[in-house]
């Protein structure tokens, strides 16, 4: 088991003929992902790396089951492409495109809620269940992906795409494999947040602990803390919060749009305090994470 994506997950790629999309589609195929089709309007009938290209999502869903779609269309077209996938009944959308205007994001998420689809991203690198499949560019080429990600009991969720791989690599180096790793997306508003995905991790028999990479800005960490405080967590959670220094420079944009520091409540220090109060284990140093996970699993 894993969450969101597994071996049998059948995937399509919207915007498959774009340069980046061709590159990550190759990596997905090499890793063993079941990529059943791609969509680029006006390019139907061609193929990319042997994957048939269609003009619409519906042309694929009429023929076969589609479990997930990776959206890599340019930002101005994301809303339309996402609506198309949702209305065609695709249950999971992974939006890798960056710089999607917030109104479009909110509209996509609202329609997804109404229709019962789940969205990861935008501005995500994707989702991987190591040894099974990966959806999106996460991990890069298959060979590199296998170096950083190995199967195991730790669920990984990160607000930073690059740090998703880094975190998995750190765990792997210390003998801890991952059940699933999710790059949440670096935007202020994203589909799958810590608190929303928590129940899925808890229901997954393979996941025994969670590791989260957090950043300053936004209420997502506080929302998780509140949920854990109210309902408890059947899994130990270890969090690392990067960007303590940004508190010294309010108003300056560091890294993701999501880490613009606006007030005391969303600084790294304040998040650490709130999460600790809720019983979440907060790592002071990045490299101390594996030891904390092992201790929580009773191995340390």
């Amino acid at each position, binding site marked *: 088991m894993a969450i969101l994506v597994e071996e049998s997950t059948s995937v399509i790629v919207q915007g498959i003929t774009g340069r980046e999309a061709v*590159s990550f589609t190759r990596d997905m195929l090499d890793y063993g992902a079941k990529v059943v089709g791609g969509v680029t309007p006006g390019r139907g009938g061609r193929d990319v790396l042997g994957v048939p290209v269609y003009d619409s999502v519906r042309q694929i869903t009429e023929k076969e089951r589609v479990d997930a779609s990776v959206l890599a269309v340019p*930002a*101005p077209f994301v809303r339309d492409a996402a609506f198309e996938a949702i209305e065609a009944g695709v249950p999971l959308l992974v939006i890798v495109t960056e710089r*999607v*205007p*917030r*109104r479009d994001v*909110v*509209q996509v998420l*609202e329609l997804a*809620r*109404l229709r019962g689809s789940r969205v990861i991203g935008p501005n995500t690198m994707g989702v991987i269940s190591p040894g099974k499949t990966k959806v999106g*560019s996460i*991990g*890069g*080429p298959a060979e*590199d992906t296998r*170096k*950083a990600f190995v199967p195991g009991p730790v669920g990984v969720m*990160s*607000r*930073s*795409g*690059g*740090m998703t*791989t*880094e975190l998995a*690599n*750190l765990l792997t*180096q210390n003998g801890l494999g991952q059940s699933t790793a999710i790059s949440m997306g*670096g935007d*202020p*508003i994203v589909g799958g*947040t810590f608190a929303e995905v928590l129940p899925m991790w808890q229901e997954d028999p393979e996941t025994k602990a969670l590791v989260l990479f957090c950043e*300053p800005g*936004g*209420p*997502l960490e506080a*929302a998780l803390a509140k949920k854990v405080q109210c309902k408890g967590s059947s899994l130990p959670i270890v969090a*690392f919060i*990067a*960007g*303590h*220094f*940004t508190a010294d*420079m*309010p*108003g*300056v*944009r*560091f*890294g*993701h*749009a999501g*880490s613009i520091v606006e007030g005391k409540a969303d600084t*790294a220090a304040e998040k650490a305090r709130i999460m600790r109060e809720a019983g979440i284990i907060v790592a*002071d*140093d*990045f*490299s101390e994470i594996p030891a904390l996970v092992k201790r929580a699993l009773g191995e340390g």
Partner: protein
Amino acid sequence: MRFYEFEAKAFLARQGIAIPQGRLAHTAGEAAEAASTVGFPAVLKSQVLSGGRMKAGGIRFAESAAEARETAEAILGLEVRGRQPVGVLVEPRAAVVQEYYLGVTYDTLAKLPVAIISDRGGIDIEEVAEKEPEHISRRNFSSLLPLTEFPFKDCVASLGISGGELTALTGALFRLARGFLEHDLTLAEINPLARLEDGAYVALDCHIELEDEAVGRQKALLEALGANPGGRAARPPTPLELRAAEVDSSDHRGVAGRLVEFDGSLGLIIGGGGASLTAFDAVRRHGGKPADYCEIGGNPSVSKVAELTKLILSKPGVERVAVIMNVVNNTRVDLVARGVVKGCVESGRDPSTTIAAFRIPGAWEEEGFRLLRHYGVQYFDRTVSIDEAARRAIGSMSTER
């Protein structure tokens, strides 16, 4: 992109929300003339992109043309939190009976727009939320369904407001929300919206922000308002930051040069978003003093990385550089290594003593490591974590002194 008050008010007027009959002045003379036109007593407001104008003396009153001239002179010369005003907005002083707060923004958790109203306007809304929560009403509304007035009526009515007051406030909040959605705003606040002695509802001050990613598709609005998106950063860029931005835009390959200057001795070449945050914290935690924060990513060219390295080394007080990235998928380690080494050599510095640490695991790492070995540079592979690499970089600096 934050709007100046005069731009934001012009926006409100276009949405059908009443604003004072004001005039923008760029000189003390213009301000005196404007004040005579709008009438006395007049209010003169510094047009500057920061809060705290009132406390700083950026909002003042005048009873005569002579006083308006003198006051405008003072306001135009007054920096507010490090920012220069672009003009003075001159308005008639309003006879206020009641003040309200109206706001629309995105609710990150509900993932919907949210309308907020309070009958305790004029002060910091967060203070009201803390001390008098019963005087604030919030309501999420759909971003998809056609916008109608009822959600805003509900929001206003739940404060116990009825009669003509309900109708007027519902209309204003609805128009604010409609403008918010149509024009890709991320924040639209009127504080206060004032009910005047004559019964009119007028927006006396406001704060409006446009989504940066939507500036392109809101060009028509920006043109109509005469608003130029440039020059609005929270802090004006330093010359070094401007030169780094030039390096970054010198070719289209990758990112190398998004830089924020600090006062330390250790130059940082780090990336991308989350990894930079982690590396910077780790350097400080282990007693290092960063000279800069930066982000490299994608697949920058050798020359771009070399120029960035030279630029950072040219900063007075910079003794060393540390090169730290997360495990990379699409950045070629060897190209970054060549760029940093080249930058050191061209600055007349020995790479082995100038590069405190090089830690980038990923594509083409063997080629990169071979080059670094050749130059005697301390490098780390994926078995050494980001913070450990930072610690060792700082360790190597202190042991040699």
